[in-house]
């Protein structure tokens, strides 16, 4: 699936970023942010989001690689 960030147009190639968008915005969304633009949108740091991805993986969430 080819997905582009709705803000900067950057291609989102990893499943983790898609999964994170679904977790933090809504599971039925069809438009996605790249991790940098998602951090801006959510007013947090990219590091915060990377931590979230790791936590979701540890929980065994299948949205992540």
């Amino acid at each position, binding site marked *: 699936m080819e997905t582009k960030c709705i803000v900067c147009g950057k291609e989102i190639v990893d499943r983790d970023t898609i999964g994170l968008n679904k*977790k*933090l*915005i*809504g*599971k039925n969304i069809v438009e996605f942010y790249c991790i940098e633009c998602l951090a801006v949108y959510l007013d*947090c740091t990219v590091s915060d989001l990377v931590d*979230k991805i790791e936590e979701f993986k540890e929980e065994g*969430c299948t*949205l992540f690689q």
Partner: protein
Amino acid sequence: MKHMIYADNAATTKLSKEALSAMMPYLEEEYGNASQPYSFSRTVKKAVKKARETIASCINALPEEIFFTSGGTESDNWALKSIMCSNEDTRGLLTSGIEHHAILKSAESIKKMGIPVSFLPVNAEGIVTPDILEREINNKTKLVSIMLSNNEIGSIQPVKELTGIAHSNGALFHTDAVQAVGHIEVDVISLGVDMLSASAHKFNGPKGVGFLYVRKGSKIAPFLDGGAQEFGMRAGTENVAAIVGMAVALKENITSLEKSTSFILEMENMLLDRLTVSGVDFIRNGAKDNCAPGNISLSFRGLEGEMLLHRLDLKGICVSTGAACDSKNTRISHVLRAIGLDDEYATGTIRISLGKNNTPEEVNKIADAIISIVQ
């Protein structure tokens, strides 16, 4: 680093500084074993005795009715299993469908042993009304276990009335009061209960310690065999520091209960008012007139509770959710299911639990954050 706002006080609470100070000597110089007869252990022994007396006085019990445990889960397991599995009496257990898993899982274990177990329904406010119990109870009921205050939605059960019904049918009554002790007035004589479970870390005490109240004269089997600690009912060297901390924290909470309750209710109303005025579509779950102060279960239409939890977390706000998602399904909690909450709202449920250490400024920030996420 952003300022963290802790609004998950139903999960655990911050250890009281007074409790910590009281604990320190027993973690350092007063390390004697309370069971030993030499003078070095005298201080420790007296500390355990005093803690038992303090805790008993906080719930209007006798000191010998208080048994120290490792926490609420152990107390619940002990109460249910010792009564239900102790003799040839094959009468059954009645509990509710909204209990904590410490009760529900214990009840399931008891059921697997071939003992009859029934789970009572609740009304839309999460209450086991007296008529619900009246319908199900009979002379084949040995024990009724209904929580005092629900952990997810805060509904306070009519335990006094339920206990009366249990006793008039020849059954014992246990209440899981983990969310209630230290937060609402708990008087075991007035409630009439035979057993009551509590956990220190829910009322600003340390983790890993709690107690089970057992009314004098009630026959209960020992939980752990071994030494003579806890009147021979729960063997194992006492966790003296934790026991002392628990007593100090409970006394502190009880002493300031009226003031804390009023302060917490003010903040609770402030939060609900802010959300209502902003036009956010939400439901507040739980009993309309009788909820544990600060326990605010909110369901937002069409949203996902887990999304809200993580978005709030990114803003430094700690809350819980009543619904967790995976890639395909949303698992709605047994409590939200039991009250019959519409899925459209249930999936978007979070629990904000305010405590005495929260501030009105924090509550305003929580309201701002929710409104910005939801709208």
